[in-house]
């Protein structure tokens, strides 16, 4: 939902970043306002996932130039966990398995870290159980998942639903979904998309990173950006995704090379 008067949640200017000394992001610009859903599409290696990791503060990614402002703060000044408690949430492309840590404990510790950052008291085990049972409905997850180790032995679809469960619990101002749709069957995709739609409000924003137009049938973006060679080279509405699906990326890349507007 576009509302030009709403708060700017994320503002990225001329962002450049390296991995292992190789420049991956080469001058990226993006502005996201409250209430908006953005899709970033692009070929493999265009820098989409790197961008998501840089936003979350992964230590392997070195920002060499540019700036990122998140709700008015300089995001690059913040440690990864401070970014999270300030309202950034990254749904991982490959959620990690953490043997020995129960999902329930993990979620409670994360939730309490957020409360603590807001200056609120930690909630106890029982109150937390009530809260999390409620959130399970968002992604139609069975309570038995809470007592298993984090993501251990989960199917691909279960891991992605578990990511959205975390999003439902932590209520971020900006959720970045990194290829959350990859490898999902259609039922799991509908569940995940349904969860994201339920969580989208006029106060928060979502950035979907995807290869495929398919998810955008269920989560309708306000903007579709095409990334290539570490930059956003074109931006359109939801129809751009359909056009990319039928025509491929070559025409956009060509237009960018020749400087002709698509």
């Amino acid at each position, binding site marked *: 939902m576009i509302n030009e008067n709403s708060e700017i949640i994320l503002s990225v200017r001329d962002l450049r970043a390296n991995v292992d000394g190789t420049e991956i992001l080469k001058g990226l610009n993006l502005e996201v306002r409250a209430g908006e859903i953005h899709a970033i599409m692009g070929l493999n290696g265009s820098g989409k996932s790197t961008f998501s990791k840089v936003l979350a503060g992964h230590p392997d990614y070195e920002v060499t130039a540019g700036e990122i402002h998140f709700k008015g703060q300089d995001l690059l000044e913040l440690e990864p*966990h401070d970014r999270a408690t300030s309202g950034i949430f990254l749904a991982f492309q490959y959620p990690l398995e953490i043997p020995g840590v129960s999902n329930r404990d993990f979620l409670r510790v*994360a939730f309490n870290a957020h409360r603590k950052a807001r200056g609120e008291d930690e909630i106890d085990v029982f109150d937390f159980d009530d809260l999390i049972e409620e959130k399970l409905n968002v992604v139609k997850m069975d309570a038995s998942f809470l007592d298993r180790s984090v993501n251990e032995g989960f199917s691909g679809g279960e891991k992605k639903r578990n990511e959205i469960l975390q999003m439902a619990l932590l209520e971020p101002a900006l959720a970045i979904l990194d290829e959350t749709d990859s490898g999902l069957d259609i039922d799991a995709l509908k569940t995940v998309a349904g969860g994201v739609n339920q969580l989208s409000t006029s106060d928060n924003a979502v950035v979907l990173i995807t290869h495929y137009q398919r998810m955008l049938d269920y989560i309708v973006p306000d903007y579709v950006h095409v990334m290539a060679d570490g930059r956003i080279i074109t931006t359109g509405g939801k129809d751009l995704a359909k056009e990319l699906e039928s025509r491929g990326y070559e025409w956009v890349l060509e237009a960018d090379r020749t400087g002709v507007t698509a």
Partner: protein
Amino acid sequence: MASSTAEVHSRMTADQRDAYLKGLVQGAKAAVPKALALETVRSRAEALLNEHAFPSARDEDWRFTDLADLLAHNFVAAGEATVGEADVADLRLPETAGAQVVVVNGRISAERSQFQNLPDGVIVGSLQSHLDLQIVERLAQASGHHEVFTALNSVGFQDAVVVWLPRNTVVETPLQIIYLSQPEETPLLVQPRCLVVAETGSALTLIEDFGGLSAAPHFTNAVTELWLDANAQLTHSRIQREGAGTFHIGKTAVTQARDSQYIGTAVDFGARLARHNWEIYQTGEQTTTKIYGLGAIAANQHIDTHSLVALSHPHGVVEQQHKVIVDDHAHSVFNGRMAVAQKAQLTNASQLNRNLLLSDKARVDTKPQLEIVADNVKCAHGATVSQLQADEIFYLQSRGISAPQAQRLLIYAFAMEMLETISVETLRSRLASTISKWA
């Protein structure tokens, strides 16, 4: 590294080491109470000691565990001693009330022990009061007595905790044995001994708890023999949390008859140097053996677990997991031997050793040792040595958990997997809280 280890050992010649061992043996013998002469047991052990040398780094079994620091002390066999209730209170578990044996300097303290919650017919007490049992058939008869430190204990133990479960007796209350050493100015040699006989169809949960009263140097040389007759079930926790100056060498020898089940968890948190020789011998078919180990060490601590599971009958099931957290300059050694003889067909065995290094200076030596003669068996094994995974920490950070808190959570999780095998809840939660403080 091998050369420097050899140098340390070479501070004492083989002759000097033998003289040292003789001194320990003579001292230990002299301290034996007359009522416990046990001529057969003692003389066999002494004969064995005369033929064996004090271990050095040249012995394969002691390659990574340097006893030079132990040799630097002249340990004197401990005498009778007492402890105050305050020294014991923290170790007593509510679940074991009325079934607690307190052993001080190798002798049972009647004053501190409690026996009222044990069913009729079950014997728990001092060897001196139970010499009429068929002790000689069991005491010091377990395989694995051919070893210097076990023989040293057999020569010199001053008392033994005897636990005897008659046929088909199920003991509901877990039995806790608390071993303490009351330090003196001279460093002491303390030699606790325990004999458990679980007759056919009986069941028991046993906790052996080696506590530390002081950081002064002393030498605990403990031997526990566990006999599981047919279809018996024994769940055993061996907790070693001795003081920072202790040298702890322990033997657990388990003999399993057919259809018996042994579940053991060994926890090593304490001592300056600790060696646990954990030996399981199968004497009948279809035995189940589950052994779990957890070590958490820092500073200059050294722990060494040498386990042996010897299978000689079909349909045996063995599951072993051994996990160690090593910080600072600490050093962990694991040698997991499984001997599967020709007759042990259809054995299903697995062994996993995982080590978590928290410092660049920490050291781990691990060696699975599978000796499989039988041709129709499943034996899986693996060993890993790793640091905390940066990606796991980042995943937790991305959910608002700070890096130090993420590390604590991961260390705790690593350890809890082993502690969850301990069924007595208060013990499990106390050990867990040690880990969370530690991490």
